[in-house]
């Protein structure tokens, strides 16, 4: 797999990261280097090996269906650049 400038532009856009046009070729090159490292992993034969999901034999931690959190609108909104009447206020997004 090879990443060209256009793909790099698209990935940046999907990640909402602004990248200037002249920086794109270098970014694409970096992606390719990373993918090259990962390509090497394909040389390992993993036929019949269960994908590892955790390094320790753990079971997914669960919680009971009980309300234990919330009631802190001020804290939730504390970092918002703009909050009004208990809401986050953001530039208009309407379909």
């Amino acid at each position: 797999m090879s990443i060209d400038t256009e793909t790099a532009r698209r990935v940046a856009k999907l990640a909402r990261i602004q990248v200037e046009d002249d920086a794109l070729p270098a970014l694409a090159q970096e992606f390719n280097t990373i993918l090259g490292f990962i390509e090497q992993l394909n040389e390992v034969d993993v036929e019949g090996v269960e994908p590892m999901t955790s390094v320790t034999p753990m079971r997914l931690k669960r919680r009971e269906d009980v309300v234990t959190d919330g009631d802190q609108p001020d804290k939730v909104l504390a970092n918002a650049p703009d909050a009004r009447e208990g809401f986050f206020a953001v530039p208009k997004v309407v379909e």
Partner: protein
Amino acid sequence: MLDLTYDTPKPKVIAGAKHDWELVIGMEVHAQVSSKAKLFSGASTQFGAEPNSNVAFVDAGMPGMLPVINEGCVALAVKTGLGLKAQINLRSAFDRKNYFYPDLPQGYQISQLYHPIVGEGEVLVEMGDGTARMVRIERIHLEQDAGKSIHDMDPAMSFVDLNRTGVALMEIVSRPDIRGPEEAAAYIAKLRQILRYLGTCDGNMQNGNLRADVNVSVCRPGQYEKYQETQDFSHLGTRCEIKNMNSMRFIQQAIEYEARRQITILESGGSIDQETRLYDPDKGETRSMRSKEEAHDYRYFPDPDLLPLEIEQAWVDEIASDMPELPDEKKARFISDFSLSDYDASVLTAEAENAAYFEEVATHGDGKLAANWVINELFGRLKKEDHDITETPVSPAQLGAIIELIAKGDISGKIAKDLFEIVYTEGGDPAQIVEERGMKQVTDTSAIEAAVDQVIADNPAQVEKAKENPKLAGWFVGQVMKATGGKANPKAVNEIVAKKLNG
């Protein structure tokens, strides 16, 4: 148990300008899990709370916060799967669906793309005309809901409330087995009924607790059968997805519009672009959601914050042992135990509360009589005031007592209606009301005879006419009923009037 069998309904056919077309519809229904807390946080799911007050830092996407799964939500998803006769996957896993939107602070939705908790199941969708469609369920997965954006509070800004962010949803995905707008509405209605019976989702469409994405395509007659034979989608047309519908009426209208739009394009030589569309109920049309298309690359990957969800068969069995009787079984039982019609049984089992009410009334006497009274009198009366069964002023015991009085012959059907009205508006013990207000039916023949004699004596001219024309006997019966305040046993009156006139 009586096994209900149905014919398969005919697919809806739309006549285009050139030829006939059929519809193929698949639905993704989002059902909010009836849990107290959210899927991965301890914040409340209560509807209508102050903005951003049901929000934990996990829901707000604060750095360093980790999701911990709510076991109650998992149990309800398993229960739903069992209710849809579906396969339960003892091992499932969560994935991240990445996209940016102001009401999704994490920047991704936690969902189950690759390994859903529930596999294949089925829903029997009755069409009310003796036909029913078996709609196959492909899968059910657990996922997070997004927050809510409000656009009309400020001209330049959207206001975001994260109370709904992270609430557990079950996405119930059907196969493309639905063949018309009416079937689509009936499918949603049936699914809603099952979920409400199970208590896993309240089915409140108005609040958005049950909403659907509807996939619509059209094909020439015969093509669908080829698809069913081979399960090869290439026999079907390209589909469009109509997003986020929360009204059965709008779902039908949107499908109808969308099918005609596609037919017009195809018949004029064009082709359908697979896209996401939105239904505008004011204009009655669907339109493309272009922004959604651009962001369609969700870059799913397994959520590294969550281990696979492994559940034990014993736990599933425990949930299975606690299943309520489901609508199909209940309906079949009502038909066989109470000799009800398919229609009456459907009405009575529409809501579990209705069915429970009826069953209690039916313990007081004949099932059919009980069904008539519950459906025609009680439901009719409740509907007049826009009430549902939970708001009934007449208890099952009271209605049962009225039915007992009818069955015993203490009151006529007509008086029973007056009695019902009294019980409905004033309350009280029906038997006592009948006693106190002298509503008891007169079955005493001598009393009826006296009344008949009186009417005959008062109307000699009518008696002469009746001798010529026996049909006039009805007039005498009416007069006697009037004279006795409707309390005379109509059968006895008929007999006595006939005897006296002929005698």
